[in-house]
């Protein structure tokens, strides 16, 4: 257990140090600045009156969510493949519990990186929105968004890690396809099955956190929002992380990865 834990932490810190290059930092900073740029541009085009508060809040959430997903696609989905492509997998796999430590360590590094970028994006976006004077309680909005982003990053990173372990050659494509089909389309179906999506639970928590009042007496709203209490949403997300990471560990342990020209 200690060996595995140390291997995991070592992988995480090694990956973080390795990723802190000027090129990568510039890319992530540009990504983080994207929501603020859009908000400023929309704010300028909206003129002196500015934008409506719900629209601005929704826009920030959507944009920083997109930034988080993009950062995760770059970091979490390519964990196994980057090592196989770089032919360094064999050095990690020949350590005790090295395969699992690599996958989980890279997952942690992806969470730290994507959450850091998302948090920076949120901060810049809130500052940009506040510059136009559109958020009544910017601190509370920032804290709730930061909390939701943490949940989103940990959960989606676990999902992308599993996809990256199973379909390592086309991980990004499969992750993007999953996001479109399951997290976008399936999560909008007013049925019990939407409870299996991550977005459903994050959305429920967002309604509670932001204090949005939804017209739940109306049929479409009642079916799409306000189904589960907060503890169920937290438990569902926690279970999702545990199950996907457990499955990733199982698959990476029981799969043969051919790393080079076998001679």
């Amino acid at each position, binding site marked *: 257990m*200690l*060996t595995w834990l*140390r*291997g995991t932490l*070592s*992988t995480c810190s*090694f990956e973080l*140090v*390795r990723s802190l*290059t000027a090129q990568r930092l510039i890319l992530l900073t540009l990504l983080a600045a994207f929501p603020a740029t859009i908000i400023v541009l929309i704010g300028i085009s909206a003129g002196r009156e500015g934008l409506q508060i719900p629209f601005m809040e929704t826009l920030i959430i959507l944009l920083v969510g997109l930034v988080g997903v993009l950062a995760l696609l770059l970091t979490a989905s390519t964990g196994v493949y980057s090592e196989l492509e*770089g*032919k*360094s997998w*064999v*050095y*990690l*796999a*020949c*350590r*005790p*519990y*090295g*395969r699992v*430590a690599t996958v989980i360590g890279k997952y942690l590094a992806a969470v730290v990186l994507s959450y850091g970028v998302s948090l920076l994006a949120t901060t810049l976006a809130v500052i940009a929105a506040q510059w136009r004077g559109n958020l009544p309680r910017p601190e509370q909005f920032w804290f709730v968004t930061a909390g939701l982003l943490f949940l989103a990053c940990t959960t989606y990173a676990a999902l992308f890690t599993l996809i990256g372990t199973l379909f390592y050659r086309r991980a990004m494509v499969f992750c993007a396809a999953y996001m479109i089909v399951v997290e976008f389309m399936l999560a909008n179906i007013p049925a019990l099955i939407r409870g299996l999506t991550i977005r459903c639970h994050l959305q429920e928590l967002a309604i509670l956190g932001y204090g949005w009042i939804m017209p739940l007496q109306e049929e479409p709203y009642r079916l799409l929002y306000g189904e589960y209490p907060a503890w169920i949403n937290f438990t569902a997300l926690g279970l999702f992380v545990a199950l996907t990471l457990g499955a990733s560990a199982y698959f990476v*342990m029981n799969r*043969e*990865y*051919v*790393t*080079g*020209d*076998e*001679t």
Partner: protein
Amino acid sequence: MIELQTVTKLYGKVIGVNEISLKMDSGIYGLLGPNGSGKTTLINLIIGQLRPTIGRVTLFGQDPWSRDYLLREVGLCPAIESHIPRVNALDWVTHLVRMHGFSRADARQRAIDALTRMRMDHAMKRPMRDYSLGMRQRVKLAQAIAHEPRLLILDEPFNGLDPEARFEMTQFLQQWSREGRSLILSSHILHEVEAVHPSFLLLSGGRLLASGSPDEVRRILADSPNRVTVRCSNPRRLAGLLVNSEHVDSVRLLDSRQSVEITARSASPIFLQLPDLTRAEGIQVQEIQSAEESLKELFTTLMKHHRGEV
């Protein structure tokens, strides 16, 4: 230490290794075979990176596929060149040692010790992308020995090394064997492996063709015909002298009668006879070529043995 029981590994329809059975006690082993003979597959089976399609592999008495902790006792220096840009050797080796469960401080000290032993102390804080092939090979070896394994496995460690680095590598391997630790050395170059006096495992086409000490392998080859080509000032005269030798099966003039090819049961008696014969007759020898040291020749002979043709 290692046991394989009728192990076969298939990659789809391609055979990696074919019905290999062997038992390896602690010691020094040379895994020899031409490229594509199944050496890396065999190594990956031993360290549990591959699961045999048929048969059973045990390492230290246990199944390496399902007993990951066995890798604590194994150091592997793979043949493949990996790309680890923007990282210096010290950080990389420290990271890999930490994955064995050592604390950060302990792992760093072990990494420094191993890199110093590999004479990389002067460059260990430079990015690895700036290293020469020989330097990268030394770093690869450092990461394999830093956690002091019981068994060191080196897959083609001489690849890309200049003569000086080859000499140093040989010295290191001889030192390792003197320390009483186990070693599996995979190569396709016979004389490099011979320098550490191992027991041989000879692979070709995924099959184990022969195994044993160098003497045992030579005994296998003793009855196989060997060819020696001598380029000299008077090949016709030399051929006449050699044809009477009891060790010679046949002689043939080659290259417009510039050299003579001798076929013999064993090349060694020919080499012993040649100086006396040439000195007595005043024949100047310009070049002697023996096919005996060629691994290709060796494996051709072994394959003939395997098929029952010899």
